[in-house]
């Protein structure tokens, strides 16, 4: 069966848990998307911008020194080499082309670490659309360089002071704005989360990661990989890598969540590993919540993983057993960050470092010469202040 079903569900997950005001807008979005997703002109325009503006295809890079150390073949899908330095722009390019076709004149987005905000501000500038980005006030403080980048790109950054003042609250506020200005506003959601059809749209715009990786590995190795892995916050880079491999039963898929200081040791962001089913931000999925259904505050050293929910399709992949989900602590991710810097000359995002950390741990259990693809979802320049603080050093 192909998911989502007609009503936007992935097994019991997904759906549209939103107030009535937004239902017509979601239906309109779904109809427009269905109209354009297979439209040759739309596809050609998207392909043009992915190539010329984003810089795709990016390499599937053989990490030779790391491979030698681990005794397996590690390939890195270099999403960090995209324009704006992360995978997020694959999706924002797609959604803004959709917004233009739908005649929307204003763009809004939520952002946690600021990567999706920057990717949205970038495409809004490119197409000359007004852009407001909602960002938790805590994150505005933590991610100053990204806030400035967004401003340089002409976006208005709106600090959100409600709740925990992080990504989930930014998403609440973006929803509130959308409820208010739904007639002229297009909401570019940054992950495979939110109400249907967002998880589908974002997956479709991110699957270019897996499609490229698949043909690149076949070209380089003449066979499919044994393992594909990516970090999971909301889950868009993982879904983008996984989706084209779902039908390839021999390919093990592992999503890596952020365990913070360790599950059972304070707040973390491992919704799939340690959460339960619930409804947040328009979809049913695994969530971090208390007994009474109030949403917990998430934590990770990687700001982009700091979210108490996860995309509904990941919940379905977990329950169906097609993908496995594990977690990695802040310290393990940090060690992997340094390892990649020193062995490969690549400064990875702290988010992506979680996937690297998992492979470093799992390598001993894999057969020699196993082929592993890690999604290097973003570059780490944005994180140098966090890392410097951990090293008791200064930038």
């Amino acid at each position: 069966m192909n998911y989502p079903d007609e009503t936007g569900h992935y097994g019991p997950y997904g759906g549209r848990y939103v107030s009535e005001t937004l239902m017509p807008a979601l239906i309109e979005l779904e109809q427009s998307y269905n109209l354009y997703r297979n439209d040759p002109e739309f596809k050609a325009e998207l392909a043009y911008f992915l190539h010329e503006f984003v810089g795709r295809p990016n390499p599937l890079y053989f990490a030779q020194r790391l491979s030698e150390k681990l005794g397996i073949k590690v390939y890195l899908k270099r999403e960090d080499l995209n324009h704006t330095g992360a995978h997020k722009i694959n999706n924002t390019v797609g959604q803004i082309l959709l917004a233009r076709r739908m005649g929307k004149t204003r763009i809004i987005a939520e952002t946690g670490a600021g990567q999706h905000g920057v990717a949205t501000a970038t495409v809004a500038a490119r197409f000359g659309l007004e852009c407001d980005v909602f960002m938790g006030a805590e994150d505005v403080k933590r991610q100053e360089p990204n806030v400035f980048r967004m401003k340089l790109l002409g976006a208005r950054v709106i600090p959100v002071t409600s709740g925990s003042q992080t990504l989930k609250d930014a998403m609440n506020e973006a929803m509130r704005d959308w409820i208010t200005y739904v007639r002229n506003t297009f909401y570019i959601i940054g992950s495979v989360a939110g109400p249907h059809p967002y998880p589908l749209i974002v997956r479709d715009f991110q699957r270019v990661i897996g499609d490229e990786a698949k043909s690149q590995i076949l070209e380089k190795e003449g066979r499919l990989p044994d393992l594909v892995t990516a970090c999971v916050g909301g889950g868009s880079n993982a879904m983008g890598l996984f989706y084209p491999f779902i039908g390839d039963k021999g390919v093990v898929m592992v999503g890596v969540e952020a365990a913070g200081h360790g599950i059972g040791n304070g707040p973390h962001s491992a919704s799939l590993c340690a959460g339960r089913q619930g409804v947040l931000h328009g979809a049913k999925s695994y969530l971090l919540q208390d007994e009474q259904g109030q949403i917990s505050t998430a934590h990770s050293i990687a700001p982009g993983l700091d979210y108490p929910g996860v995309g509904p399709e990941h919940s379905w992949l977990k329950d169906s057993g097609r993908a496995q989900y594990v977690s990695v602590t802040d310290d393990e991710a940090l060690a992997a960050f340094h390892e990649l810097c020193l062995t490969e000359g690549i400064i990875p995002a702290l988010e992506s470092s979680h996937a690297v950390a998992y492979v470093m741990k799992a390598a001993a259990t894999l057969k020699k010469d196993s082929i592993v693809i890690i999604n290097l979802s973003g570059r780490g320049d944005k994180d140098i202040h966090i890392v410097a603080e951990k090293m008791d050093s200064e930038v």
Partner: protein
Amino acid sequence: MSRIAKMFDELRGKKEKALIAYITAGDPDMATTEQLLKCLVESGTDMIELGVPFSDPMADGPTIQAAAQRALEHPFSIQAILGLVKKFRTYSQAPLILFGYYNPLLQYGLERLAHDAREAGVDGFLVVDLPPEEAADLKKAVDIQQLDMIFLLAPTSTDERIRKVSDISSGFVYYVSITGVTGARESLADMMEVSVNKIRQFTKLPVGIGFGVSSPEHVREIAGFADAVIVGSAIIKQLEAHAGMPDMLSKVGSFVKQLKEATRI
């Protein structure tokens, strides 16, 4: 006949429209909510929407967000909220519905919720983030207990959606007057009367209007064409303004009396 249907019948006989008051349970604490419920009905409120606070109130403006945040500073439980309703039922037969977001209800267990709610004296549910498309499970549980499920309609609702919402609703239909979140506003939206008349082509249920209603003048205007007027944020603002003062209840009471007076046509 349900308590809600009976209320609308009686008010029709008296040529009055229903005043529905929203407050958040536990804001700022359960003892205050208990006193407020009494104050609201004694001041003429016809029906209560008791808000179940949620950490992520996506459809609420700053006033009700703040109310939820204050409420959640204390331990939260559905049982405690149902306990308030039980006490309320010892002295009032005014209809009372629970108003909130889906997740806390879902975590309590939907069948258990509907059962315990009926036992406590709750008359129905309005779940902001539960459109008809996702409501089958709760609707089933609520139907077994013969309680009402109230759904929202908005200015953006198409004919098809008005039909869908009308078909699944019972008790009354809640028309959200504006494209926007909850919150008191200076002026009312245009076109409300046109929208209400359109909704009436699809349903015989009473139509209530809420979101943005903040003054007796607003209430009077809406009472001219709708069956119920719903006031939330404006009441909570009164609470905020007089929090901790000895005359809080009398201030809220006199505000509510003015609102109720405006429903008499």
